[in-house]
């Protein structure tokens, strides 16, 4: 496409740097500095997309972040395609492929436009009133059809090759918005030496000054003042300038989050650059200088391509050197459009200005448009054209509202100005209270909650000299300075407007389709329909009509809807209020929010010190909490079942070695350490002697089992507490919670030592034979070092805490050494154990061995509803202690009922079926559904030692059902199982003392 609408001169584009991109496959010529929107307009493209609901042809309405219409899919290469980009915010970049959305088969010819013909039926909320019959049609037919018609662009379906990063920053003053107010604020703050961050969503800093071609500031053209300001700021080491950076969220404690677009504007970005950078800023003070959004005017068919905001016309002419049309009609209810009309006229375009205000209400702005056709006291009754506007139908309105003869003003572009809405989004997100200014017909910042201030147009100040002075004072005050500065600006800014809701018309207002929310196709009559149906709250109107809920979140439409509501209810706007401003200000890429948290960095993998050894020896790993643990060590040709059988046999008959390092470890120290444990655990700790271990069940306040582990007393004031692998963080948090809030008087420190100690479990009848040659200073004889004892000493000269404990039922040791030494000790043990057939085993074998002995795993055999007594461990609960965590709850009547679910063993009657963990248990399979369930299988393994599968289960009144036959669900039905005590192998526990046990249930 040739640049048919590029003006011969002017604009900030770089005419020396032409480039090409494509729109719907056709080449578009552009210059560096263009946006996709300005380039499309320069190429004479008006039709940019189809609206959400009625699939109406739409063009470019705005020049910025508030664009509701021109949403494009942007393709930057494989995996780099994404939908719903505002053409006004995408910089023209060589090689981009942009495409319009929401049409089939093409933008020009869209079958979906049938919805527009059906618009008399498809009014606000029509779908709540129909599609109900027949019932089955909703899921099968109606909803799929609605969904296919809805949505805008197409979601990406390939993995994203781009990277996103986070940056955390602190500053004294964060200035959001680099228009005149923000620049002045940043300069004033920076002068004091304060650390300043100045962010702006545009590619260039400058805001409205980027298209200000007439004003002079302090005697210099505005562009020159802008260049000086930018240069001044750029030269200061205490200032960080962030163009292309949108502050989208204002959270508590002056936490402002911004997203910086780093590479999207680069045709060939360096591969090490992230696509976007999320800035999380904690600012001592925030200066909000986010400007204002212009309002379109509402009249019939005010949405045709070529109709845009008046100030946007000015921007395209002045900043981009583009004529959005050759023959432009401005329609305004205020002064600012006069400047836009004057600038368009100066660019050589045919300009007409229609002012809806009566002639008498027009002020000094009249002088700006000498030579322009000027109609005052007129209304707009409609527009002509379809894929481009071809004319506006206007008519005079008398003082008493009589509409005179209509005229059609031919045009290929219209610029609408219905006044200005301050951009109070961030202020409102900061929880500040808005106040309504009738003179501005707008909400402005009222009282603050956080340390921020709003300056310039976002605070309702529209005169450039006043904006600059307010910005300067605000920036200075934010930096704790009282410096003030006046700015001389000539000529004065034309300001002021008359709020109008819907332009006067002689047509039936119930039929006029005057669009307010362009993207969601909400018209003024939709708002009135909602009100008629009783939706009077602004939130109800929003939800019923969907106004303000599109991707632009109503930046150009919310005030119009509010105004109509106010008129219809005859209540002033402040009594109606406004909808909540919710983050984000503009849509934010998921990637930017998650940053580096992808793939390997999504959740850190914790690896035990012996992880590499296990990997080198063929271990298969499983995820346990954040840890990756060796699950089993298959040898050639073995599946998991075979490997686990072999590993189990080795432990029962010889010796096995297991990496237990992931167990949580907490060092509890201090003079009150024993008293602390005595309160935290239900069993007694005060009399545990140094050198001894004890098993502890930890309860929460509700009396249910929460964690378990062996605790060793190292010294009178020092305990080595172990927890489950997954429970370590919450147990430490639980301890800290009590120490800090309930018992601050106790002198106790609780310190996580999980990473410090590697734990090597050496288990089996030959464990002592393997260990003994490596230990010099600990007497390992059964008399000197009995079961449940702990000794400190050395292994291979390395300090160790050596536990004589067993989770397998076999005689065994857990060797704690500093993590760095773990591999040396492990390898030495493996070497020493070779003659005894030492076998590394994984978590699955550990599970089988413990289940054979009936040892529980908290979280598998318990689920947060299980008391110690339910587990058959009621004896551990001290009756004598005055208090412990959970004591009061254990006294509740339901906690001691005989029909509570109790831990039992289950043996399938056929002796072969391996029950499924999670399977449910019933007494009678012939009962009707819903059946009475007695409990469920918690653990189930094939036991080599028992020669059959064994299972543990929680069964209602289970201990009274020993030897009963119950029925357990299987994928296809039920299988019968006998209830037995939950210990299948060596039930007396003799083997831990080196005495061969018996297998009771085999």
């Amino acid at each position, binding site marked *: 496409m040739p640049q048919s609408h590029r003006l011969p001169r002017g604009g900030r584009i770089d005419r020396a740097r032409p480039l090409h991109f494509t729109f719907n496959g056709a080449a578009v010529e552009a210059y560096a500095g263009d946006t996709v929107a300005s380039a499309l307009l320069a190429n004479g493209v008006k039709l940019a997309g189809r609206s959400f609901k009625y699939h109406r042809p739409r063009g470019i309405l705005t020049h910025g972040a508030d664009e509701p219409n021109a949403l494009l899919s942007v393709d930057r290469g494989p995996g780099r395609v994404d939908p719903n980009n505002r053409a006004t915010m995408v910089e023209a970049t060589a090689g981009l492929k942009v495409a319009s959305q929401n049409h089939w088969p093409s933008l020009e010819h869209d079958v979906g436009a049938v919805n527009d013909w059906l618009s008399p039926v498809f009014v606000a909320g029509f779908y709540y009133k129909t599609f109900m019959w027949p019932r089955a049609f909703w899921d099968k037919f109606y909803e799929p059809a609605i969904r296919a018609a809805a949505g805008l662009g197409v979601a990406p379906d390939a993995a994203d090759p781009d990277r996103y990063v986070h940056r955390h920053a602190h500053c004294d003053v964060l200035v959001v918005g680099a228009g005149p107010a923000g620049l002045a604020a940043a300069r004033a703050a920076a002068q004091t030496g304060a650390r300043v961050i100045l962010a702006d969503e545009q590619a260039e800093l400058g805001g409205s000054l980027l298209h200000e071609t007439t004003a002079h500031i302090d005697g210099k053209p505005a562009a020159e003042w802008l260049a000086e300001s930018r240069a001044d700021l750029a030269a200061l080491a205490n200032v960080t300038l962030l163009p292309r950076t949108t502050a989208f969220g204002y959270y508590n404690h002056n936490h402002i989050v911004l997203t910086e677009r780093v590479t999207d504007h680069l045709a060939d970005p360096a591969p090490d650059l992230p696509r976007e950078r999320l800035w999380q800023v904690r600012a001592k003070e925030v200066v909000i200088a986010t400007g204002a959004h212009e309002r379109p005017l509402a009249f019939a068919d005010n949405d045709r391509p070529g109709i845009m905001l008046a100030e946007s016309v000015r921007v395209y002419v002045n900043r981009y050197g583009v004529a959005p049309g050759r023959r432009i009609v401005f329609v305004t209810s205020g002064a600012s459009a006069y400047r836009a009309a004057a600038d368009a006229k100066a660019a050589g375009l045919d300009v007409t200005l229609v002012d809806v205000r009566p002639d008498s209400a027009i002020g000094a702005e009249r002088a700006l448009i000498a030579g322009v056709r000027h109609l005052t006291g007129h209304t707009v009754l409609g527009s002509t054209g379809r894929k481009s506007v071809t004319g506006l139908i206007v008519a005079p309105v008398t003082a008493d509202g009589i509409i005179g003869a209509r005229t059609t003003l031919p045009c290929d572009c219209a610029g609408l100005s219905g006044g200005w809405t301050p951009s109070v989004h961030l202020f409102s997100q900061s929880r500040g209270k808005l106040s309504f200014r009738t003179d501005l017909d707008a909400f402005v910042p009222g009282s603050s909650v956080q340390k921020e201030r709003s300056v310039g147009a976002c605070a309702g100040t529209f005169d450039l000299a006043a904006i600059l002075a307010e910005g300067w004072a605000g920036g200075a005050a934010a930096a704790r300075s009282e410096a003030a500065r006046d700015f001389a600006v000539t000529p004065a800014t034309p300001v002021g407007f008359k709020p109008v809701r819907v332009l006067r018309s002689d047509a039936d207002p119930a039929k006029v389709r005057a669009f307010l929310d362009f993207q969601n196709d909400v018209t003024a009559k939709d708002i009135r329909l909602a009100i008629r149906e009783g939706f009077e709250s602004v939130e109800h109107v929003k939800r019923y009509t969907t106004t303000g*809920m599109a991707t632009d979140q109503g930046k150009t439409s919310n005030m119009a809807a509010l105004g109509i509501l106010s008129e219809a209810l005859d209540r002033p706007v402040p009594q109606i209020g406004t909808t909540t401003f919710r983050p984000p200000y503009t849509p934010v890429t998921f990637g930017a929010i998650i940053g580096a948290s992808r793939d390997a960095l999504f959740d850190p993998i914790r690896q035990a010190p012996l992880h590499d050894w296990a990997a080198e020896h063929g271990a298969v790993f499983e995820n346990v909490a954040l840890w990756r643990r060796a699950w089993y060590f298959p040898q050639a040709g073995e599946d998991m079942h075979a490997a686990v059988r072999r590993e189990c046999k080795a432990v029962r008959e010889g010796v096995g070695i297991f990496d237990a390092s992931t167990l949580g470890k907490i060092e509890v120290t201090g003079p009150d350490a024993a008293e602390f444990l005595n309160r935290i655990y239900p069993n007694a700790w005060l009399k545990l002697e140094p050198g001894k271990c004890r098993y502890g069940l930890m309860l929460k306040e509700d009396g249910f089992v929460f964690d378990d582990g062996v605790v060793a007393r190292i010294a009178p004031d020092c305990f080595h507490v172990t927890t489950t692998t997954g429970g370590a963080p919450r147990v430490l948090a639980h301890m800290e919670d009590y120490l800090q809030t309930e018992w601050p008087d106790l002198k106790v420190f609780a310190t996580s030592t999980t990473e410090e100690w590697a734990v090597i479990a050496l288990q089996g009848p030959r464990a002592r034979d393997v260990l003994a040659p490596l230990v010099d200073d600990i007497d390992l004889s059964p008399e000197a070092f009995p079961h449940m004892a702990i000794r400190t000493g050395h292994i291979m000269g390395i300090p160790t805490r050596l536990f004589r404990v067993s989770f397998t039922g076999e005689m065994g040791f857990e060797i704690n050494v500093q993590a760095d030494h773990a591999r040396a000790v492990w390898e030495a043990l493996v070497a020493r154990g070779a003659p005894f057939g030492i076998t590394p085993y994984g978590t699955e074998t550990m599970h089988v061995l413990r289940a054979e002995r009936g040892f529980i795993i908290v979280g598998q055999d318990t689920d947060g509803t299980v008391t110690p007594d339910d587990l058959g461990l009621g004896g551990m609960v001290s009756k004598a202690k005055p208090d412990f965590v959970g004591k009061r709850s254990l006294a509740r009547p339901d906690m001691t009922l005989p029909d509570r679910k109790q831990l039992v063993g289950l043996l399938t009657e056929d002796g072969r079926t391996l029950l499924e963990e999670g399977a*449910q248990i019933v007494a009678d399979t012939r009962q009707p559904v819903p059946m009475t369930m007695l409990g469920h299988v918690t653990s189930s393994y094939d036991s080599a030692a028992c020669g059959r599968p064994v299972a543990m289960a929680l069964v209602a009144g289970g201990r009274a059902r020993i030897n009963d036959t119950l029925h357990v669900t299987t994928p296809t039905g039920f299988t019968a199982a006998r209830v037995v005590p939950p210990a299948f192998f060596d039930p007396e526990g003799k083997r831990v003392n080196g005495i061969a046990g018996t297998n009771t249930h085999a």
Partner: protein
Amino acid sequence: MRRFSLTSLLSEAMNAHQGWPRQWRKPDPKPAYDAVIIGGGSHGLGAAYYLAKQHGLTNIAVLEKGWIGGGNSGRNTTIIRSNYLYDESAALYEHAVKLWEGLSEELNYNVMFSQRGVLMLAHNVHDVQSFKRHVYANRLNGIDNEWLTPEEAKAFCPPLNISPDIRYPVMGAALQRRGGTARHDAVVWGYARGADAMGVDIIENCEVTAIHRGPDGAVTGVDTTRGSIKTKKIGVSASGHTSMVMGLAGVRMPLESFPLQALVSEPVKPCFPCVLMSNAVHAYISQSDKGELVIGAGTDQYVSYSQQGGLHITTHTLDAICELFPQFTRMKMMRSWGGIVDVTPDRSPIIGKTPVKGLYVNCGWGTGGFKASPGSANVFAHTIARDEPHPINAPFTLDRFRTGRLIDEAAAAAVAH
């Protein structure tokens, strides 16, 4: 009440829709009612609807502090399912799902109940055990829930990443085909319209400032910002603010209130066919009829009455979504918001009588109240009308925290709901 139908819609289309009446009136409060419901969300309005419809109590009012449906009814992610573990919960939520299945017709209001299926992913052995426990329990309770292999899960939800190389590979999934989503606002408006048509007064912008009790301790009325109202029955259905309302009657509730956040993406063409929940990775996602991806996760860590949470919760939620669906990193968050959820010690609701005669409470829904709306409202109405609980809500007493007969779904399953 003007019936909604294609016929009435077409006839109104000829009339430029000038004939539609208010969906509910805007009455001023009367001096006295037979019963008053505090809280105009889906639970409170639903209770009023069933009180009028099934129990003949029509001289009643719903008092709403702000605008109806402005609390959690209008802030949730609209997920509906009934595959709960315990008999008590399963019965309650299944009661709700059965009502959902006929709710559009019942209310003559399209609530867009879409049974697109709720898929819950298992990522570790513990999840597998837990989900199978649910599947089996549901089967014996007559509730649909099935176990899927990762490949079957992928077939049901094609965008799902079942690669073994992700941080927490999918080991299987539980699927409730009858689960799905509904249009949350429509439920509120539908109940309001239905209740109003039977004479119930729905009074918005009416905050209760005091609850009065007589010499015998029974309730006698309330003070509101719109005047005093006499009544002998008060049903409290105020979600995150229940503890404050109950405090007006001198009842201290075992509740904690937390912010719960959710977000939506920009609308896109259909790309996500079902509801998907992952507890281990911790997020849930579906796509709305408008095309937005609707995404949520757990509560903020701190108790608060502020409907604003921290960005780090959003971050963790999206971390999880993009781990499961890496193709979505280029999607954009369009809107995020928070609600205040009231959480009981066992994360199951309290629906029933209170120590104060004439005062009834329906609260403690935590993160899972929307799905229960019709069922909860239905049994709450029964409780208020008859001064005794319906068999379905009989176990959900306030007293259970004293006796210890808890219904701890979260402890049992560690599943967000």
